[in-house]
């Protein structure tokens, strides 16, 4: 082995206890980082995958981002007087020429689109009333845009055509009502339409809010229920390349004026929480590493102080400043490296421990255990940061060691 490594190791061996403390510090920092990152990234990736899977990549709605200016404001743009009690212009809701737009959007490359009419609905079964979000869909188009068909646990999408008034319910919603496949419920819409509807399918996406609230019917039925013939109030898109969602949304909004959201925008609140989560994770683990780095700084500084005589003798023999610097830098790097390897083992162990935990929760997502990202990247990042921090901590005292003037030391000692 190299001379500098040998001497560095001999110094560490001399201060085994202190080195062990720093080593454990580095190991804990690395281990926790690996485990927490696996936990959080695993959950976040699972969430994003689910969201991308069950919700449209892009949704165009019959709303405007800024409320349209009312006629009175347009008529008197510079008015100093505020007019109160002016009736707003009564615009029929829905996307204007919805089907023509749908056809245009469908012609875009890499884009599948489906029309939807959404609305509220009260479902009544026996003495139970449960409110639901009704989505009127066209099954052939819906198939290309969402994974509804794949999420069905009973019945089929085509069964919507099978009965006069057919309905597909989220599993949670069905459980709340106490209905199963083949049962009939009474549906009441805000428009005052009442309809007896038969349950022809049940789905479970894993996202609790959807499973608890959503119901699907044919678009035509939804239009009858809402008393809005031929109206579509949302066009949903699925892209071949999800990464383009935001760009496509911006383009469509610029072109048609309707509020158009990518999945990222629709889930911005959750994605924002992820950012905060990650920031907390990074700062916690960095704090551990910073403490460990201080420990390393301490050890190496002490060793340098203790070893000035040895440094002087090494230089008198013919070792150079950079050799001396290397000797002390190595001590930090060795602690960082060994600590990282130990940390990998801790991290791996923690991940396996988390993986073995089984539970059943229904938060905003249904899950039977932790979702874990086990990729090697987190191990590498953690080790790189730890070794870098250890090296930096040792660098200052190592520089000081390199500057030791042998004559001064030897003259002082003799």
């Amino acid at each position, binding site marked *: 082995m190299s001379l500098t490594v040998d001497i560095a190791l*001999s110094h560490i061996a001399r201060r085994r206890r202190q080195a062990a403390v720093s080593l454990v510090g580095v190991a804990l920092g690395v281990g926790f980082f690996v485990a927490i990152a696996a936990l959080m990234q695993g959950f976040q990736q699972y969430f994003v995958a689910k969201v991308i899977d069950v919700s449209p990549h892009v949704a165009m709605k019959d709303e405007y981002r800024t409320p349209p200016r009312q006629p009175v404001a347009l008529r008197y743009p510079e008015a100093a007087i505020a007019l109160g009690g002016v009736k707003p212009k009564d615009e029929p809701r829905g996307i204007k020429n919805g089907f023509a737009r749908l056809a245009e959007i469908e012609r875009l490359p890499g884009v599948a689109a489906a029309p939807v009419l959404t609305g509220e609905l009260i479902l009544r079964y026996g003495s139970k009333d449960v409110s639901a979000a009704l989505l009127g869909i066209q099954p052939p188009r819906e198939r290309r845009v969402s994974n509804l068909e794949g999420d069905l646990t009973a019945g089929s999408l085509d069964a919507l055509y099978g009965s006069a008034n057919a309905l597909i319910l989220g599993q949670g919603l069905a459980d709340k009502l106490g209905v199963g496949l083949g049962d009939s419920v009474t549906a009441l819409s805000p428009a005052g339409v009442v309809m007896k509807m038969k349950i022809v399918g049940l789905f479970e996406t894993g996202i609790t809010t959807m499973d608890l609230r959503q119901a699907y019917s044919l678009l035509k039925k939804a239009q009858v229920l809402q008393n809005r013939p031929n109206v579509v109030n949302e066009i949903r898109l699925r892209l071949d390349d999800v990464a383009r969602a935001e760009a496509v949304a911006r383009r469509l909004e610029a072109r048609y004026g309707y509020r158009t959201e990518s999945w990222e925008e629709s889930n911005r609140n959750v994605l924002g929480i992820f950012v905060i989560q990650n920031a907390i994770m990074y700062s916690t683990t960095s704090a551990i590493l910073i403490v460990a780095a201080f420990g390393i700084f301490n050890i190496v500084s002490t060793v340098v102080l203790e070893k000035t005589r040895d440094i002087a003798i090494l230089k*008198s023999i013919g070792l150079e400043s950079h050799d001396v610097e290397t000797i002390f830098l190595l001590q930090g790097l060795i602690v960082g490296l060994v600590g990282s390897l130990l940390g990998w083992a801790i991290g791996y162990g923690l991940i396996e421990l988390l993986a073995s935990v089984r539970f059943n929760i229904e938060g905003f997502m249904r899950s039977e255990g932790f979702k874990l990202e086990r990729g090697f990247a987190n191990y590498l990042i953690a080790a790189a940061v730890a070794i870098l921090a250890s090296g930096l901590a040792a660098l200052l005292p190592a520089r000081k060691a390199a500057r030791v003037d042998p004559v001064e030391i030897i003259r002082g000692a003799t």
Partner: protein
Amino acid sequence: MAPPDPTPTAAPEATPLLRAEAVTRRLPGPVPVTLVEGVNLTVGRGEFLAVTGPSGSGKSSLLYLLGLLDRPSAGELYFLGRPTSRISEHERARLRLDHIGFVFQFHYLLPELSAEQNVALPMRKAGRLPIRQVRDRARELLARLGLEDCLAKTPDLLSGGQRQRVAVARALANEPDLILADEPTGNLDQKSGSQVFDIFEQLAADGGHSVVTVTHDQALAARAGRRITVVDGRIVSA
């Protein structure tokens, strides 16, 4: 025996190992301190030179200058015929490594390393020998100094005399042309001190090595081929 006349012109070879010309060393500061002043000195190959003088006269300071550990403030020091005052730290380190061996009063062994590892150190830095040969040579040197039983011992397990002999072995590791010793016997009993001087005598007699040693012991100094006395940073008698 070395020639009685120490002046440069009387040096036995055309290119002496070491030649100091008007070497002066001052410590700068508000009150500058002169450590060594106007020293002219030639050390030939195979010469055994003893340096004596009162405490604080500048013997050690002179030794650091001769060993390329310190730089003169004025004057020039020729090592193997080359002026050394303007060469880089890197070159000076290389010259020390290849040509000079130091022995100090307080042995200065690395406490974590065994005797063998201490002796191997200069050879490993020089990097000319494969590790196996480094080990063999370290053992051979220690055996030559009567330390064959101490190879694996760390300095704290050795007696003062043994430590000093390990330090001598380390100084000899890279076959130096010059051995500089600063009161190597200062901490030793009579017998051990005498042993160290036996070794120096042998090294000089074999012809390969020149030895310059500082000593307070007049009896030991008398064994050297040549003696110089330093007072107030100057060589006063040769």
